[in-house]
């Protein structure tokens, strides 16, 4: 029983990271019907931004691991990736807005490869150790252990998700996002600046991916330029699993993926870890083609 609960804790911590990445996939899909394959690599760039900012802080400002450091690094990296997301959308996807959907998809794969290889060129192909932003402590509850890092990962993810919910449902921009998602053309006719809404969506999604990058750097302190491929793929599966275009669905999908993976490794074998991910996807899509929380209609968000 203790083992089960401990595995659940492990799984949920991993799942929140998938969930954060999945949010970006799902938002962009909801608005543009585009699967942004470069999203996993934005997450990687986020982790590297964090790595360099943390190193800058440590060399320039004198370095003591603390929560303040963490917030500084998180904010800087989210801002950096927000700009990256904006540039990618402006430079690569917007010119193809009226082109067939397949063109944009292939461009997304191209951007993904570009970021991966540019990353190897600029950051170097060897893995880097993510600096210790927060002093590590472990809390024990009976035989169960939770590290403060796990708590911070989950807490940060919850705060960011609540923030996203607020933006989408309580602000003018959020209303515009939902309108564009419902029908881009109609929203345009009503005077909504569609391009601005789309840019904003990319900015938001990329910032969340950056946050996931920082959290994973904190959690498993090894980052490399190809680290975005597998989590990106799994987050995409998570988004589809939860119902692509659906925000609570992306979070649910992420948590399911994380726990399923952890339980597979814990109780079966690590060999099946990646396979199980896709078995779950196929199984869910067989019975619910729109995903767990997806609705057949075009109403998204």
């Amino acid at each position: 029983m203790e083992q089960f609960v401990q595995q659940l804790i492990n799984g949920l911590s991993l799942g929140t990271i998938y969930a954060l990445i999945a949010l970006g996939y799902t938002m962009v899909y909801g608005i543009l019907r585009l699967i942004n394959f470069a999203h996993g690599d934005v997450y990687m760039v986020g982790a590297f931004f964090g790595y360099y900012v943390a190193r800058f802080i440590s060399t320039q400002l004198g370095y003591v691991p603390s929560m303040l450091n963490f917030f500084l690094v998180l904010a800087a990296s989210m801002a950096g990736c927000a700009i990256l997301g904006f540039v990618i959308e402006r430079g690569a996807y917007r010119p193809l807005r009226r082109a067939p959907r397949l063109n944009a998809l292939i461009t997304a794969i191209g951007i993904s490869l570009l970021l991966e290889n540019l990353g190897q060129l600029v950051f170097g192909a060897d893995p880097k150790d993510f600096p210790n932003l927060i002093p590590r402590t472990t809390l024990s509850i009976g035989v169960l252990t939770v590290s403060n890092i796990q708590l911070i990962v989950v807490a940060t993810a919850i705060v960011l998700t609540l923030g996203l919910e607020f933006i989408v449902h309580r602000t003018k921009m959020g209303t515009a996002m939902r309108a564009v998602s419902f029908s881009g053309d109609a929203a345009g006719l009503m005077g909504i600046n569609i391009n601005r809404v789309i840019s904003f969506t990319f900015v938001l999604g990329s910032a969340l991916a950056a946050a996931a990058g920082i959290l994973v750097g904190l959690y498993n302190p090894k980052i490399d330029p190809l680290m975005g491929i597998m989590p990106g793929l799994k987050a995409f599966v998570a988004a589809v699993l939860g119902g692509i275009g659906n925000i609570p669905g992306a979070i649910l999908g992420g948590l399911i993926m994380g726990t399923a993976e952890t339980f597979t490794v814990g109780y079966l074998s690590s060999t099946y870890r990646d396979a199980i991910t896709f078995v779950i996807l196929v199984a869910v899509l067989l019975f619910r083609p729109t995903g767990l929380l997806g609705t057949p209609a075009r109403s998204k968000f």
Partner: protein
Amino acid sequence: MIETGKKLRRLSACVGLLSLVVLAATCAPQDKTIRIGVFSSLTGNTATFGISSKYGIQMAADEWNSRGGLLGKPIELIIEDDQSKPEEAALAITKLINQNKVSAILGEIASSRTLAGAPIAQRAGIPLITPASTNPKVTKVGDFIFRVCYTDSFQGVVCARFAVQKLGLKRLAILKDIKNDYSIGLADYFRQNVQALGAQIVTEESYSEGDTDFRAQITSMKAANPEGIFIPGYYTEAGLIAKQVAEQNLNVRLIGGDGWDSPRTVEIGGAAVEGAFFCNHYSAEDTARLVQDFVAMFKKKHNEVPDAMAPLSYDAANLLFAAIQSAGSAEGHAIRDAIASTKDFPGVCGSITIDAERNARKSAIMLQISGGKLKKYDVIYP
């Protein structure tokens, strides 16, 4: 008509240029040097192995060149990076043999990558010496493949005896990398020997190279209540595993193989690897003349204490150069025979005699990580 003539001329110029390029590419370069190929993981997951290995080989080549080279010609090293990937290692070897026409090849630390490249060298009849690939399968590829280190069958005995007899551990767990020949092989030998010594392997978990989250495996191992965990993997994962073991308050002895030997183990693992043991090929603390000279020279050049990959590669390169010298030829078969007849060659990591299986019989050294430094703990003779 004039237009067509111009076009034709341009076309023929193009064809001429192209054929020149092809000619230049197919023509073997003039044999003014002895070309030695090196394939090495200069980037990627195990970059410190490749970089250390490259430094060791370069030091050996520089020394020989300063003494007048080999057979009256300077040694030219052609170094290829395989990005720590087996498929790239195979490509690198193919390029070294077909394009650079090397006389012999030095390389790879990791058994998986040597195994990917060795069959190509064997088919081409180019001798290959691996400095540190310990998996027994490596030299079984064929009679052109040699090594200058001990094998995992020996390393498995050493680690098992150390864990059971020296540390008195009765319940052991194994956490191995299932995508890695070295790790699987070493885990097998360790298990067999631990069981033969009357101790128990209570659980065996696995991961894949490049993983960063080992919490699920560690939680499973914790349930089996081991006294020690054997981690026959490479340094990147070993450091992260140690950290996550500490995070789950699992108070056990950590034991590793020679794949741990990198300054990064301590950098990544920090306090979590303190007190851990691993089996290695040499200790920089060794007082032998050869070792101290090498360490001093390496420190002067690269400003750090060398891990075992540097002196092993230095030994491999020196042995190869000596073999070419005594063969009196840079032809594959002659070099092969000369390497095969090597006896009592004085190396930094111990004297090397190549046996009938093309392996070297050498002693192993147990190191303990203490105060962030590697301390010599025990020497085990074959």
